[in-house]
């Protein structure tokens, strides 16, 4: 056993040191693996970044109320009567005498995407007086909050980075009325960072939707209180509504948005990996062919077929591991952390960052290792089967 390890060690180090003699094909197979891995990483990082942003938007102790069956904010309707009933429900946090609830209305307005200068859907959210307090980790970084009852807008910092038309201090005409951007807020890593906010009552009247909300957000005393609000709403026949914790709601939205990208990632990644595998197999068969005289000599002086097999296997694994590392380097330099935007499941633009996670890096490494194992296995068997006398006679 110990001698087998020694043999494998000796053959492997000979193989690895002879790689430079087959430089061109070895590099080709390293690059092919690297490109396959970076394509896989590109879409996985996109999907992960998008899902982190959407999921990171919700808290456990804030309830979101939608029309039963609406599925998303844009399709939901909540009336003022319903809002008033829920504001009186047990478990709602009060600030002084006022319940911390916010009836909200989301409309879509056009902005211009900076990179292409084409129109893009911007979420314009009317929020109630408690709307800001209901969202943790949001703070104004420039200017001030809009004053209730006025045509003032505050804009998310993420939206400003990717889209133009709503710069600080700018006046905008919507529905024959002038609006002014009076502040910029930051809500890092959440969907709110790519939204515009204004007073809900003003939004309702100017967008011709009097007394209609789409959703309602409610600050509950605890996550458990969100569950009791679900029962409260379920037991009241006037309320054909659905209650979710904000976290549950955004987790649903996230899976809708990212499933497609995850499927694309694996479709493209696997297809390209198969191409890279074909390249790796070719390289390894060529390597075995080039070393056949050497392998034959080793066999005659007493090395076993296993040593030849493992030597080939380790060479293949090294090439694909190098490819995997190169792919990761490309990913970290070229796109990790970059900001981009896409149309979210809510039909509005969402700004997010490409984000690699440990899990994604591990999947990439696993794919590279699989390419190496498959790429080394069959050529390894051929190496183990080299028949010394025939081989040397042929030379």
């Amino acid at each position, binding site marked *: 056993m110990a001698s087998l390890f020694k043999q494998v060690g000796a053959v492997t180090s000979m193989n690895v040191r002879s790689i430079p003699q087959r430089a061109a094909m070895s590099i080709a197979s390293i690059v092919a693996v690297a490109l396959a891995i970076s394509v896989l990483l590109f879409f996985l990082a996109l999907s992960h970044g998008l899902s982190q942003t959407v999921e990171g938007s919700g808290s456990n102790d804030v309830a979101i109320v939608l029309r039963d069956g609406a599925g998303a904010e844009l399709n939901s309707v909540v009336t003022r009567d319903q809002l008033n009933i829920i504001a009186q429900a047990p478990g709602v946090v009060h600030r002084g005498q006022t319940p911390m609830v916010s009836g909200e209305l989301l409309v879509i307005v*056009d902005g211009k995407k900076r990179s292409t200068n084409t129109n893009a859907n911007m979420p314009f959210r009317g929020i109630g007086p408690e709307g800001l307090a209901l969202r943790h980790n949001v703070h104004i970084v420039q200017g001030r909050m809009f004053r209730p009852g006025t045509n003032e807008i505050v804009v998310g910092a993420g939206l400003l980075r990717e889209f133009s038309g709503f710069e600080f201090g700018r006046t905008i005409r919507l529905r024959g009325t002038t609006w002014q951007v009076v502040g910029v807020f930051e809500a890092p890593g959440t969907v709110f960072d790519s939204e515009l906010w204004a007073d809900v009552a003003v939004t309702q009247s100017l967008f011709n939707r009097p007394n209609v909300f789409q959703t309602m957000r409610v600050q509950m005393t605890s996550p458990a209180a969100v569950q009791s609000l679900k029962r409260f709403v379920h037991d009241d026949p006037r309320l054909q509504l659905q209650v979710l914790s904000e976290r549950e709601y955004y987790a649903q939205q996230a899976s809708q948005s990212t499933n497609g990208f995850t499927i694309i990632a694996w479709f493209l990644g696997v297809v390209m990996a198969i191409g890279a595998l074909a390249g790796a197999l070719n390289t390894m068969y060529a390597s075995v062919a080039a070393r056949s005289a050497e392998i034959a000599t080793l066999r005659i002086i007493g090395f076993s077929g296993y040593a030849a097999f493992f030597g080939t296997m380790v060479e293949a694994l090294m090439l694909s591991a190098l490819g995997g590392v190169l792919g990761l380097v490309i990913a970290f330099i070229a796109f990790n952390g970059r900001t981009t935007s896409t149309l979210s499941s809510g039909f509005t633009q969402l700004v997010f960052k490409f984000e690699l996670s440990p899990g994604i890096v591990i999947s990439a490494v696993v794919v590279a290792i699989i390419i190496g194992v498959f790429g080394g296995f069959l050529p390894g068997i051929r190496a183990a089967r080299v028949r010394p006398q025939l081989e040397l006679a042929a030379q």
Partner: protein
Amino acid sequence: MNDLTLMRKNLWRKPVRTTLLLISIMIAFLLFGVLVSFNVAITDVRTAPNRMVTLSKINFTESLPIAYYDRVLHTDGVLAATHMNWFGGYYQDPRRGFLAVFAVDPDSYLRVYRDDLHLTPQARETFLHERTALLVPRNIAERYGWRVGQHIPINSNIFTNGTNGGHVWDFTVAGIFETPDGNSQANSVLIRYDYFNDTITFGKDRIGWISFLTTSATVNDRVAHAIDARFANSQDETSTQDAAAFNRSFAAQLGNIALVVTLVVGAAFAAILLIVGTTMALAVRERTKEVGVLKTLGFSSGRVLRMVLGESMLLSLLGAALGLLAAAGVLYIFSRINGGGGGGGGLHLYPSVVGVSAAIALALGLVTGLLPALSAYRMNIIEALGRR
């Protein structure tokens, strides 16, 4: 035995190697075929150059008063106009995917989209006269198994039906239509505006947008200007543009798809260029002796060069053909799965994609074969026969 036979025999003397190379070439062309076809399907919706749309200036999801329709129709330079509303439709379960259901004015719709819908005269008559009539494109009818005359309930995720208090409307399939390749109406399910407008509980007498034809594409700008100026400073300002430009900006909302496609396809081709190029070089190096023999037998250097190039061309054309075949299969499966509102309806391998692929395959064959072919061309007999 001609040169082609020799090339073929050379190509298949190492069947494992050739098969592996074919697989990697095939994969690059599979990705090319699928991704570029997707991009074409999304961005290149074919519309007549004189087709325009008038939308709310705020965003296309905001509605307009129905009175605007008449004013647009009677604007100088407008040939025919119709109005449409997004219904937010789905059949039974929203998880099965959404339907692009539009509420339209039948008479004017069938005039503006006369060349887009292939419809039987009977289906046409029914849609013009039956309030609950529904027109469905063939791909969607097949997907859900709908037949003409069948009663179909369709849900809206936006509107409430005032007659039953729910979100469901009953329709009767009046006809199943077909559209030309890549047409904008390829996935549109059509219902009547009068039925829609009489039964909804809010948003009555509002329309989503106006689609119209100008007398000629040369007057497009003037007409757009006239319409938008007319509604300037009103509650509902408009934005009028040609339909192709609107489709492009809508596709751009998803992200820079063309760039992503270029990068992925570029990565795939870069990988196979290296793999095939180095392997061809190895193959010719292995055959040094044979090249010496061929030259000794009187094969000219030019002929040897052509044979090596021919071999690499054969390889890459064969790989490309296999890849496009696979791409056509994958696209067919996608269009089956995604027949609904996902825009995957008319998805298939476009002839233009096949043409570009052929050009790329030739270039690939040339580039990968050139260096080995030149080295075979330059090889001198004495050295070739002596070298081991």
